[in-house]
């Protein structure tokens, strides 16, 4: 796939999704970019802001298979991965794949399931395979998890462990839409829009095209200066006194990958600091753990990342 086709396809995907998702351009870009960077997305936002709609629209536009798991406290790992059951006809065990065997998985309210069930996603997210009864089974390509969680409720929830949080390429936050956007949403519903029916969306790509786009994004050139900038940003999260646990090197890789996708989406064959900077917060915000004192003072990860961005000079050219 050449750069022009990538850009054209990316633009078509965005416009296709924007037909049903109103006023969530940042979320659209983030989800699309993460999937094309072979990553997974954690979406945090209050109910009713269109998180699920975005995931379904993305699946429809990409032409990928889509499944949804509603995470609950009694959800078992086997409910996610599948299990072997006794086949009366063959008198043997037959593996029945779980919903994870899909190309786009929506893990709705992922923090409502206990840690054991959450962890069942770890192997799938990292190695894109599932091991059940000692047998590893490859997941279809492309594979991406879009998990959602509600930031308000804390009763009966299980916060995601750091190890699993690190598996998510980006964490996107969904804010309440502005008044005019909300009016448009309501007007669309008044005119008969049904969010459950996305038949009006046409697939822009095939799963193979998506894989090809993922490969193309990986070929985007990243200059040493850009790598230095990325590493400097991530390392500063470890030196910050308000951050108890900084981002891992996996964050640096994630930052680079997302920047590559942005560069490719703009038709460039190289990454610039402008591609890196907008992705710093989505990539790092769930990977840094603030010190309790900082939390008590009301400091947020985004605020600290902003400070780090301000304190880190971007790579300059030598004149």
């Amino acid at each position, binding site marked *: 796939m050449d750069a022009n086709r990538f850009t054209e396809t990316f633009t078509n995907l965005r416009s296709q999704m924007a037909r049903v998702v109103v006023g969530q351009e940042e979320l659209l870009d983030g989800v699309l970019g993460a999937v094309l960077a072979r990553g997974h997305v954690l979406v945090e936002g209050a109910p009713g802001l269109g998180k699920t709609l975005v995931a379904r629209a993305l699946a429809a536009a990409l032409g990928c298979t889509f499944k949804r798991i509603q995470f609950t406290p009694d959800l078992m790992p086997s409910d996610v991965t599948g299990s072997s059951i006794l086949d009366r006809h063959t008198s043997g065990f037959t593996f029945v794949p779980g919903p994870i065997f899909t190309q786009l998985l929506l893990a709705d309210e992922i923090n409502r399931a206990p840690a054991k069930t959450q962890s069942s996603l770890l192997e799938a997210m990292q190695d894109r395979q599932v091991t059940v009864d000692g047998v590893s089974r490859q997941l279809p390509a492309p594979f991406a998890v879009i998990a959602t969680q509600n930031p308000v409720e804390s009763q009966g929830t299980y916060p995601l462990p750091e190890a699993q949080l690190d598996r998510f390429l980006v964490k996107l936050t969904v804010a309440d839409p502005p008044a005019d956007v909300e009016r448009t949403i309501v007007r669309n519903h008044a005119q008969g829009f049904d969010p459950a029916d996305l038949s009006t969306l046409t697939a822009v790509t095939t799963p193979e095209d998506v894989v090809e786009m993922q490969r193309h994004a990986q070929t985007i050139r990243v200059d040493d200066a*850009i790598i230095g900038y990325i590493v400097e940003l991530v390392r500063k999260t470890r030196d910050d006194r*308000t951050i108890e646990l900084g981002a891992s090197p996996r964050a640096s890789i994630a930052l680079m990958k997302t920047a590559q996708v942005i560069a490719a989406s703009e038709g460039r*064959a190289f990454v*610039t600091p*402008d591609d890196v900077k907008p992705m710093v917060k989505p990539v790092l915000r769930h990977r840094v753990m603030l010190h309790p004192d900082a939390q*008590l003072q009301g400091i947020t990860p985004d605020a600290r990342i902003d400070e780090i961005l301000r304190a880190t000079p971007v790579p300059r*050219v030598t004149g």
Partner: protein
Amino acid sequence: MIGRRTQAARRRAKLAATTVAITTILLGLAGTARATSLSAERADDDVKALRDDGRDGFCSAPPERLSEHAAELCPMAKEVAGCEALVARCKGEVAEKPKAPDVSFLEKLGPIAQVLMWVLIAVMIVGIGYPLLLAILKARRDQAVADPEPDAPRPSRAPPPEELPDETEAEVLMLRAEEHRRRGDHARAIFAYLHASLRALDRREQIRIAPFRTHGEYVRACRDQAARAELRAIVREVEEVRFGGATATDETSSRVASRAALLVRGLPLTVMTVTMLLALVLGLVGCGSSGPKLQRANDPAGDDLFLELLPKQGVKLSKERGALSSLPLPKAGEKEPALIVDLARVPLDDDSRDHLLKWVKAGGVLVIAAHGPWKALGYELGSGDTSELTVPPLDLGTVDINDDEVWVDESPNLEELHGGLATPRSLVWEDATPLARVGKEPYAMMKLLGKGRVIVLADDQLFTNLGLARHGNAGALVALLSHMHRHEARIARPEDGTSPPTSPFSSLMRAGMGLGLWHALAAVFILFIAVGTRAARPTPTPPPQRRAFTEHVEATGALYARTKMAPHALAAYTRWVDERLRAQMPRGGVDLAAWVAHRAKEDEASVRATFARAQSAQSDEKPRGDELIVLKKLGNLYAAATADGNVRRRS
């Protein structure tokens, strides 16, 4: 006393007037006047000769629109031969005089005007306040950039900005880029062009250069659409070379150079050129719209005839060369030229008036054609010491200007001097001697002040072209001016009456712009606060101030108390005390509690118990209730153990 002075003044007035009358008559009879003498009889002939010589424009070809001053002289026009054109113009002037417009309806517009005035004031306040607000917000942003919070990563850890060029002027960077380009180093050349463009835009406040901003952010921040497009194109080329690994060619640097030149040099030059052309055009239009120019010689109220008449009368006339307020005082024994000031043309400021008074008292001769309210000036001129007038012997020939005084007992009427005025005016001047009257009121008066004298005419009608053209007026004027007793005279120009300002501020204050000046100074100060600081030289950022230790302790304690984390506080304090005390223990010592008990002179078992409890505290355990007591005991032990300085300090 007053009666005696009045009688004396009356005597002097009669004497002077009689002298003038007799002198005038005798002047008419004297046909053999000396060349240096003023001749009243010859004066009208001189004027006629001047008019025949082409100085008759004010009569034969008067301006289409007469000035107010000239219109006042119109009644004299019909008495002047050959002035039919002016007479016709005067009729037209009278006929065309517009009526005052009815402005009563404006009263109804009063409330609207008041509202508009308040709106204007509000706009002005917003106009001043808005930039100020922007400046404050910008200062806060800059502060946030310059002084990160104490907990933020230290700026020193950031890569040093060694890649940023030292030069800050866009032009210098452009020259540097061109030098790189000449050497064939196109990559460096386009980088320098980019820097020059950014500097130029920063200087024009289109962008704000900061180490953490990307080129894309500069492009998006640029408000000027044209400049933004050029900058975007430059950034694209530069980043392709810098981050994309492309090779910069001569063509690349040429493209970037032309765009950078537009940003650095082109736009300001274009703006300046357009502005200058606009100003020039407006200036020319403004100059051209001032209506038909008035030729001075054609002005009935002009003084061309007067200026040429005096030389013909043997008086060396010159124009004053400087401000009247700096006129050199006459030296003793020297006869300074008389000074003629037509107040209608030369308004005097306070300094000039004061200085002229001193000048006259020192021996100067001042001839004034009054204009408007004479009383104030007359009062000032009369406020000094006056000398008694001495009655000179009569010279029944021509009036010799070398004579000391010519005085008569009774001042003549101007008509007796064959003079005539369009508008009769008179003077009020206490203790002055009338030289000529209009009716029963004095028209010209004289007073001796100190060593000098002042001759005042009620107005300048006799100085004007039309006034002199009327038969008899020239002779009357010459008769009056004969009291100068000077061979030379200087005439003041309009600008001479204004004393030069001592400073630009006094000049503005004098022009009535004092309030505006203060407003402008306030505006400049606000602008300096708003944007001037941007031009200031960068100063090194002061090191972040550490919070006072006690403040830190209090804040931490308050935080622990608020969050009910007494176990955490005890555990943290125990770690700190343990570390500090062990650092001060003698080498080889291992039993901390025993050492502290020895140092604090406390029971060892009690100290051991305190330490055991303190060291067993965990940050995440539930409060047992004795944390603060243990903490206080520990603090006392620490204080007692380190009470004197005879402990080993950490090197």
